Each structure stands twice: as structure tokens, then as C-alpha cells.
């Protein structure tokens, strides 16, 4: 029994001017084959103009259970949103 190929996360730029977006993952022996496979698995209908692959094991993710404390600092800063400020109607568009 041969060893399982590593898992790669696949990111696709759907159109020029857009960010690459995570679309799924796949197994491949190396990065080059991961790109080849990603083309066949995730872009059979012109879904992309560019592909990134990254080994899943190289991704560091935030911990879901610490979601509260991690994002808390931005929760309390409502003034970061323009809607926090009232602009009198006479002032016009701002």
C-alpha cells in the first residue's frame, strides 16, 4: 500500500480583478501536480484565470472556540463604521 498523497487547499481567481478564493482541496504528490489536478477538478467550466495551491498542513488557522476573545476588540469599536456619525441633512452628501 503506497502512502497517501498530501492534501492541498485550492484557491482560484475567478476573473481578472478579483481575489483568489478558496474553492476546496485535493490530493496530489507535489505542487505542480496539485495545480494540474486543480485545473481538472475545479475549473472545468472556465471558473478561473489563476490557481494557487498550498499544502493544507502549512495553513495556520484561528481556533473556533476562541472566536469570542479573538474578535472582541473590533466589536467594541463601533465608531469605525461611518454610520456611527450623524451628518445633518443640510451638510449634504458626505
Amino acid at each position, binding site marked *: *500500500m*503506497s*502512502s*497517501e*498523497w498530501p*492534501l492541498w487547499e485550492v484557491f482560484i481567481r475567478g476573473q481578472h480583478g478579483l481575489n483568489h478564493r478558496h*474553492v*476546496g*482541496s*485535493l*490530493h496530489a*504528490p*507535489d505542487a505542480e*501536480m496539485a495545480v494540474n489536478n486543480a485545473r*481538472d*477538478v475545479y475549473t*472545468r*467550466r472556465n471558473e478561473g484565470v489563476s490557481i494557487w495551491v498550498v499544502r493544507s498542513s502549512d495553513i495556520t*488557522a484561528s*481556533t*473556533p*472556540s476562541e472566536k469570542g476573545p479573538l474578535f472582541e476588540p473590533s466589536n467594541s469599536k463601533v465608531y469605525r463604521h461611518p454610520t456611527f456619525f450623524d451628518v445633518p441633512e443640510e451638510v449634504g452628501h458626505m
Partner: protein
Amino acid sequence: MYAQMVKTDGARVRSLDEMDPVERAFQERIDAGQKIEPKEWMPEGYRKTLVRQISQHAHSEIVGQLPEGNWITRAPTLERKAILLAKVQDEAGHGLYLYCAAETLGVSRDEMYEQLHSGKAKYSSIFNYPTLSWADIGAVGWLVDGAAIMNQVPLQRCSYGPYARALVRICKEESFHQRQGFDILMNMVKGTPAQKALVQDALNRWWWPSLMMFGPSDDASVHSAQSMAWKIKQNSNDELRQKFVDQTVPQAEYLGLTVPDPDLKWNEEKGGYDFGEPDWSEFFAVIAGNGPCNAERLDARKKAWNDGEWFRDGLVAHAEKARSRRQASRIAAE
């Protein structure tokens, strides 16, 4: 369906009051329509049931290539061949999206393959029937993919994020599958009487197995109730079967075909068709491994896997060599 009669482990569905705070919070998130993502806490039963359901679904996509693959080299025109090839390639893609979704739950690809190849894991009963004529390829697209669509469309809203997202991709591609099948049949019924007879024969053989795809009535099933509470199943088997019949019968009529069910009758009151009961003993025989093609399908699948081993190993060896070469030149440069 593509995942039939998935077990859930529990004896009954528990109410919120009976759950500990963590599980209760989980259930409340599901009730509120939130998605559950891979690394988040989930009850072990939810995880296990999803692994069963998603891997079974994936196996069905993979094994489902075989009955159609049989006709790639026999397609009547180059165009039909290219279309069928693209369709079968999509099914391979569906299998891959789903295996990846299952892997986010902690099961490995090798484990799932092992379960399929050893016969431990199931795949849909429908793929254990033979494709005897070109009309069968039309019937498979029209009926089998049609039934799959019925089931997969609501599953796009399922509670597990990676499964839901895989299904969104799948559903985008399925409609082409069904139409290419129907298109084959539309052409054939306009042909010679012999061609039309092939289409009727294909419908006669595929109708009941297609209805069985939805599984036996599960209104009284604890497993289904639990899966619905977890929102990994949205409709009862009977509900989906009824929808499928209501949608498909007029299409059969359009083709000038006779649905092989003497009990089929429009019921004005319920606004749907009444129809006969599939032969469930046949269904249970097929999922127990005794359908017309079970052994052939599994053998073909195992053969493909075993025959490809030298190639997979070669790619690994190449990747390994390239990696050590890169490393050596990096060291030399330092």
C-alpha cells in the same frame, strides 16, 4: 438516494432540555440555520453520521462512472462521445469534492477507499444495474441524474458547511447531465421503431430502480428524524419520490413512452400522481451486494485502483526526488 439509509447511532431524537449545555448550544445554532464548520465542536453522532453520508455519496459518484463509462467507446457520434466523456468526468469531480468534504471530519481518503474496496461502505443501489443499450445512457441521465438532483438541491442548505458547499458546485453541474440524457432520448424516439423500442425498454428497466434510489419510506425512521433535526436531511424519502414522479411522468409522456406502472394515475385531489410500490425485496438484495452488477462494479473499481498503484508510486518518487534535489541545491548555495 446517493446515500441510502444512513444510520445515526442514537435510539431517538432528544429534546433541547435533555441535552448538556454544549450540545444544546450546537443544536440551537443548527435550528437558527447556522453552518457548522470543520474544527468546531460537534456531537460525535453528528460527525459519524456525516462521514457515513458524505463518503457514501462520494462512493456513488465514483462507482456511478462505471455504467456510463461502458458506453464512452460505443457512443454513436463523436459529439455524443465528447459529451458523455465530459459528463463522466464531472462525476469524478463530484466524487472528489465530496471526499474532501468528508476528510474535514477527520477520516482519511485511504480509509474511505479501503471501506469502498472491502465492501464495508455502501454506494447507491442504482449503479448495480447494467447499461445494455445506448438508450440506457439517455435513461441514466434523465432518470438517475434527475433523481439525484431532487435529492441534492435541498441538501445544498444542509448544516455542515463543507458538504453544503460541495453540493452547490455539484448542483451547478447536474442540470447538464440530465439534459444530455433527455436529449439522447428525444433523438431516439424520433428515429426508427426499433430505436423507439430501445428507449421504451430502457425506461422499463430503469423506472423502478430509479424510484428505489430514494430509499424505503422513512416516516417512522429514528435515523431520518435525527438527520432532519441535524439538518443533514431535508425531506422524507416519500416526499422526494412523489416530487420525482410528478416531474418525470409528463416528460415520459412527451417522449411518447409508457411508464411501466399499472397503478400510475393522476390524483386531482392531492395534485400529484398515485403510483405503485417498488419491489423492496429487490432493493434490499441489491444493497446487500446481490444486484446484477455489484461484483462487476467493485471488481472494476478495485482493478482501477490496483492497476494505478505503480503510477501513483511513480509520481510520489518523482516528487520526492525533486524535493531532495531542491534541498541539495539550496544547501550548496548557502
